[in-house]
């Protein structure tokens, strides 16, 4: 496929690119608009950002999101990576079946996963709060991490680890110095996916969150259901900025780690 596409195909593609990105750009632009209700541009202001700082519920939500996101990402990344390693490197009965089952949480609608987990928590009388949110986020992230890391393992056979062990490394050393550096981009990608899913999740979180344990998306969702004010534009812009920073950081991490690991 090297020859140029016909003009109308280019036109459609161009329009689709605009549709894909214009809404968010407009949202960001109007977070700086002085007018409160109209979309007419009446002047530049940082008023809406100043008002965000006054809203303690947003700050509390951000804190909750960061706590839940960090813990669930660490746990889900470790568990998911181990799961992927077991599926790729170990032989055990039922491995194929388990590999198929791993895709079940990936295709399950969030609303179904959230409601069923809520039913379990209610049955066992588990008090709802940050702990139940974290447990839920780990549950939906583990399979995603495992699938991403498993894909990375696809192209790597175990011969380098075997060689390291023949040369006298114990399994832990071989794992630390050979497996992890090669697997690192997959692990970072999995962790990034886990964190962004956790940080963005509304459906499952709103179901298993107790009173007073709202994460940032739950607070913002409430704001939107009442009225989309310019403060929503402002908080959205900050969320976009935060996630962009995170992804930039992650791409740097995947680039530099193998080199430093090889040196160390």
């Amino acid at each position, binding site marked *: 496929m090297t020859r140029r596409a016909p003009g109308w195909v280019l036109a459609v593609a161009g329009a689709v690119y605009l549709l894909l990105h214009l809404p968010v750009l407009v949202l960001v632009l109007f977070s700086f608009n002085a007018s409160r209700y109209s979309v007419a541009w009446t002047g530049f202001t940082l008023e809406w950002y100043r008002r965000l700082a006054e809203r303690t519920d947003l700050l509390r939500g951000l804190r909750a999101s960061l706590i839940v996101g960090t813990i669930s990402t660490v746990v889900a990344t470790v568990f998911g990576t181990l799961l992927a390693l077991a599926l790729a490197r170990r032989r055990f009965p039922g491995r194929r079946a*388990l590999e198929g089952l791993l895709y079940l949480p990936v295709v*399950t609608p969030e*609303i179904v996963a959230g409601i069923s987990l809520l039913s379990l928590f209610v049955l066992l009388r588990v008090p709802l709060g940050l702990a139940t949110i974290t447990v839920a986020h780990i*549950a939906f992230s583990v399979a995603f991490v495992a699938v991403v890391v498993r894909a990375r393992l696809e192209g790597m056979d175990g011969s380098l680890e075997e060689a390291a062990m023949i040369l006298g490394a*114990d*399994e832990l050393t071989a794992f630390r110095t050979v497996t992890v550096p090669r697997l690192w981009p997959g692990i970072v990608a999995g962790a990034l996916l886990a964190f962004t899913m956790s940080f963005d999740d509304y459906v499952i979180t709103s179901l298993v969150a107790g009173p007073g344990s709202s994460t940032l998306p739950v607070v913002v969702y409430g704001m939107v259901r009442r009225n989309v004010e310019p403060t929503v534009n402002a908080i959205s812009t900050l969320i976009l900025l935060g996630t962009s920073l995170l992804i930039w950081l992650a791409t740097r991490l995947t680039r530099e780690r193998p080199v430093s690991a090889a040196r160390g």
Partner: protein
Amino acid sequence: MRGLRRRLLGGLARRPLLAGSALLAPGAGWLAVFFAAPMLLMLAYSVMPRGRYAGVEPGFTLEHYRRFFEPLYLGILGRTVAWSALATAICLLLGYPVAWVIARSRRRRGLLLFLVVLPFWTSFLVRTFAMIFLLRDTGLVNALLLRAGLVAAPLTLLYTPFAVLAGLVYGLLPFMVLPVYASLEKLDPALLEAAESLGAHPAARFFRVVLPLSLPGVIAGSLLVFVPALGTFVTSDLLGGARQVMIGNLVQNQFTVARNWPFGSAASFVLMALVLVSVLLSLRLRERHAGEGGAR
């Protein structure tokens, strides 16, 4: 010789400290307790009589599944499937040209791909708010239409089927572009040249060469759009309002407002059945077309 040497050396390597089960236990255990067990619990709820205030009572009944065949709920089911199918079709119509352009570009391919992947990393909630901001009565679309003199009064765009479909297409389009691009990228340009030199029209080249060969990508993309669309909750809740209910909203409503857990559970399993049937169907289709693709 090789095999013998390898076996001897392999014997020198230390045995794995951690057996497969030890690597497997934390992740699989977590999924068993917090994913599989809740699903089984809900399966049990879906065939139990409804409790007086909430919850369930002991017993066995299929009444909740039967209730799903009432016109009201069949309507919600039909709407969910129809909108998901429509969103998939629109994503295909819009996404295919994009995938084509990316596959044919050389220098800007990286940038074009990046621009398609970018929305994946952009908060889904933020993107839904962006749609509200555009579509509401005082939104940008209406402001532009009014200023251009095309309409006299603001159109009602938000809380309509149009808004839900627009939201679904906007949110899920990248899932269509990437797999279609992946299959178009592998297409050998010599095949097109051959078709051309044999006198095929551009349309014939597309429908008889390009499209059949890209079918695996089309099938994969359709699945990746259709399945999340079936389970939609946020898009229909925020952009559709109370009138454009899909199964996801019905499930949530039965648990939080109507307090009919068994019926909500039954609705969940109807949704799960739809999802699993779509996945299995697409796997079957893909198998068939993966085998035929090269031969045509």
